[in-house]
Structures are given as C-alpha cells and as structure tokens.
C-alpha cells in the first residue's frame, strides 16, 4: 500500500531557482548590513578617518544588494508571465475557489496537524500550497515596502533617476523618521518569514518524502503517479482513436 510510484517533475525552472538563491543572498546581505547600519559597532581605531572606509563599505554593500534585490524581483515578475504553471502569477492569485479549498486543507492538515481518514492525492500541492502562495504574496508586498522606503531614504544621496522616482514616499510619512522606522520594522517581517519558511520546507520534506528541500536545487519534485493516471488514460484513448 505504501509502495508508491513516483514520477519526477520539473517544478522549479532554472530562472526560478536562480531568483530564489539570489534573493536569499540579497536578503541575508541586506539584513546583516541593515542591522549594522541601524546600530554600528564603534571601532576602536587610532587610524585617521581618511584611511578608513569600513562603514562606507557596509553601506555600499547594503545599497548594492538592494539594487540586486530590486532587479531580481523585476526579473521574477517577468518570469511570472512566461514561466511554467508553478511560476505563473496565477499560482499566486488568491481569489479562486480552488485556492481557498486548498487553503483550509493545508490549515487543517499541516498547521493544525489533524489527520485525514481518506487523503485525496489532489490535496497534495505540487508547486506551492495555498498558504505558501499567500505568504509569498504578502512577502512580495513587504518587498515593495522595502523598495519604496529604501529608495526614498537613498534618493538624496544618489544622482540616478531610478531612486529619484521614490522621493514622494518621504513626504507621505512626514519625514525620514517614520520612513526609517517602517523600513526597519519590515525587515523583521522578512526574518519572521524566513524562520517559518525554512521550517516548513523541512516539515514537508520530512512528512511527505518527495524531495521538498532538494527541489530548490535541482528543480525536481517527486509526484505520485496516480496524479497522472487520468492523463495517461486520456493519452491511451487518444492513441486508440488514431
């Protein structure tokens, strides 16, 4: 009964995987340098300021990583129009009945840890499950907040037109004080997200045993073959007709 046949499915295409890991590196760099910028360690150095640029470098890494984060995000948005069904923007669209049915299912089985008498193979998501999709939508909104507040704070020290596009954000909140606070608090949401995200990846890998962790490296997940039966029957029928 437990001997399942699995089929290997390319779920995360290469651009999605690249996006994911570039995003990880950018967020880690941004968070670390962000903490340093918010509360820098005071160097005990006898060197003159002329010969030191350590904090300038920290800031440079933050701004550089911010640009990478931003353009990476734009490329991912592009891919959500041309990528496969798991990368497509529709996979994140929260206003469908299917999405919400799956949402309650995930909430019951994976969050509340209830067990089902007769599990339905269709309830096991191949790409993101609905809760995960929603969390990525929220994270995307958080990323937008970081982009808008970050570039708004940065714009005054830059001559490029791109950051200048965000100068209207600061007056919206009355000044840099509030913009900084929002930027800082939103960073914490990224940290909370990462904690839960990493845990749930391991959770699914452990409980479902179909390569959740490795999927973001190789792109493959293992999908039970009964998920395909209909299609195979259909294919056979088509052959007969021919």
């Amino acid at each position, binding site marked *: 009964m437990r001997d399942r046949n699995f089929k290997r499915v390319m779920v995360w295409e290469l651009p999605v995987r690249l996006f994911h890991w570039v995003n990880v590196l950018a967020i880690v760099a941004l968070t670390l340098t962000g903490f340093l910028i918010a509360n820098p360690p005071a160097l005990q150095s006898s060197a003159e300021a002329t010969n030191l640029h350590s904090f300038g470098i920290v800031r440079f890494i933050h701004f550089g990583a911010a640009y990478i984060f931003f353009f990476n995000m734009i490329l991912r948005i592009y891919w959500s129009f041309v990528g496969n069904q798991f990368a497509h923007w529709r996979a994140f669209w929260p206003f469908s009945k299917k999405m919400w049915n799956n949402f309650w299912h995930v909430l019951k089985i994976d969050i509340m840890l209830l067990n089902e008498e007769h599990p339905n193979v269709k309830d096991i998501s191949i790409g993101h499950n609905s809760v995960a999709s929603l969390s990525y939508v929220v994270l995307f909104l958080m990323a937008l907040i970081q982009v808008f507040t970050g570039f708004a704070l940065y714009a005054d020290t830059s001559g490029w037109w791109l950051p200048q596009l965000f100068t209207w954000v600061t007056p919206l909140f009355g*000044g840099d004080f509030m913009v900084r606070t929002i930027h800082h608090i939103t960073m914490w949401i990224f940290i909370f997200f990462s904690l839960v995200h990493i845990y749930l990846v391991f959770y699914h890998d452990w409980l479902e045993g179909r390569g959740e962790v490795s999927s973001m490296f190789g792109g493959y997940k293992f999908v039970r073959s009964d998920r395909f039966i209909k299609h195979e029957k259909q294919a056979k029928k088509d052959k007969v007709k021919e």
Partner: protein
Amino acid sequence: MSNTNEKRDTYYDTIIKQGYTRRDFMKFSTYMAAFMGLENSMVGQIAQSLENTPRLPVIWEHYQECTCCSESFIRSNHPIVADIILDRISLDYSLTLMAASGHQAEAAKHDTMKKYYGEYILCVEGSIPLGDDGNYCCIAGKSAKETFLEAAAGAKAIIAWGSCASNGCVQAAKPNPTEATPIHKIVKNKPIIRVPGCPPIGEVMAGVIMHVVAFGRLPELDRLGRPKAFYGKRVHDTCYRRPYYDAGLFAETFDDDNSKKGYCLYKVGCKGPMTYNACASMRWNNGVSFPIQSGHGCIGCSEEDFWDNGPFYERTTKVPGFAVESNADTVGKVAAGVLAGGIALHAIGANISKRKELMKRIKSDKKNEKNIDS
C-alpha cells in the same frame, strides 16, 4: 508706520537712508546671493532688484510660539537684514517688534491688509490651536484662527516660520491638548513656504524672504513646501564629521575618548541622518558653530513630530503602540523567540500526530532498501 507714506521707497532707498553705504549694500547683496546658493552673476540681479522694487509690506503674526524665530532672524549675519525687514522699513505688524501697541497696532495691520490686499507677505510664527474654539490663543479679543484667516485672505504668499507654523512643534506633541495645528492644514489656497526649525537659521530666513523680494516669486520648494536651497540636504550629508561616520568611528557615550576626538555622534542619537536643514553648511551665530560641532547630536528640530519620534540620545526610534522603552529590535527579538518556540512545538506535535503515517512509510521504505538488487 511706513504704510502711511504715499510713495513707497525701494529697498535701496531705505537702506541708504539708514546710513549704509553703497559698499555695504553690495556686500549685503553678495551675502544674500551666497545664502540662496546662487552663482556670482546673480549678485547684480539681486542688487538691481533691490534698487528698483518698492518694499513689500509684511505682516508678521505670532501665535503659539516662543519667538525664537524672531530672535534667530534679528541675529542673522548681516545687520541690514534685521534693519530692512524688521525694524523700520517693511514690517507693518509684528507684536514683538513694532513700536505701536494696542488699538494702534491693530489699526496699522488692518490698514496694510486693506491697502495692499493681495500684495503683502504674511509671515506666521507659531501654530494655531483649534481645540475649544481656538480659545487657547487669543490676540485683541480674536482667536488665532480668526486672525490668521483674516490676514491670509489678502496675502500674496505665506511664510511659515519655524517648526510651530510648519509642523506644530512641541505644543503639537502628543497628546496635543490645544490641538495645535500647522498653518498649511488651515489655509490651502495660498502659496505657503514652510521654513521649519526650532528656530530656523537666521540666514535661511533672510534668504527666503530676500528671494521673494528680489525675484518676486517663491523660491523652489520641495514636496513638503520647504525651500530646496536650504532643506535639500540632510544635516548628515553635509556634516563635517561625516568622514568619521563613513570610517565607522563613532562616539559611544558623551564622555568617552571617541567623543573627545570628535567622532560621529550617530550612536548617541544624532538625528542628522534624518533631518533636512542647512545647519551643517551655514551653521549658526554668523557661521560660528552648530550643535554637532559643539559635541551634541542633532535633535531633528526641523522634522515633523520630532518630539514624538523617540529619545534624543538614542539611535532607535520607538515603535508606535509599545511602551516608550521598547524599540523595534526589542520587539523583534522577543517575537522571533516566541516564533522559534512555536516552531519547535509544532515540529514535536507534527511527529506525534502524524506518527502512524510516518512509521508506516519508514517501515516500507526500509524494506525497499533491503530489496535493492546490488
């Protein structure tokens, strides 16, 4: 008051009448060009315009304020500034500085408002209380709001001097018992120049008013209505201690060795990185110094709600809705800890609740391992 003269003197006429020489006048024009950040060739234009422009009538209203703006203004770099604007020439009404008082003063103001309707500049120092029908601030039997609306109706432009008129300042700090309100929230249909600061730098005030006088129009303003020439840069970005910041050399306390060496005051709560003002480039008291140069961090007095934006001597700004002591990082650390605990519990719970399924699978998959044909 001067508004009884039929022929209006030009600024130049009055300056010469004051006993200044042509040379003084040219020096003054040069100063002004420098304050406004104009290039050399504009000096002639300022001089010419002061020679030909009849003086602008100015009404200077005082509401909820401490008069530090006026104090700052009369100490600005060149004596002509105070002489020309405040003292004898163009100030038609100012509670603090005018010679007339009582009914005479009110009459002078109403004369100006009638005679120069649509022409005069209204300078406002102080915020306007709206609470309890505006009874917290009354002048000559009228509430500040009433007086302001009356004066604003015929003004060509309004200058909001200082943080009170621009942002509400300390009297608008929570809980704002008098409902102190900055003027741009009361009058919307007039050009308003906001010149925040507690007080603003005297030279900045002179520069703003001279720009209106010399060029007949408002200086270029940013999105918050502040003149870009003076509020376009953060104090931090023009600070002479900036190299220490970029080097990572910070004072940890006010009495440590780093502080003595003049390192950056970022970690002891300097608000320079969030404050738009010209303090670091123009400095105070005729360019003598400014807070950071004296070893004290910027308190961000020209920023909105600077009283409510957390302690002056700490780097972090407090989180709204939490106790004063807590900042974003404390809240974040606690929340992350709770979250990690929750995750651990969930992981344990998952293994207990799903144990049957797990055991079954592990058993069958171990069997698979035995059956490998090697």
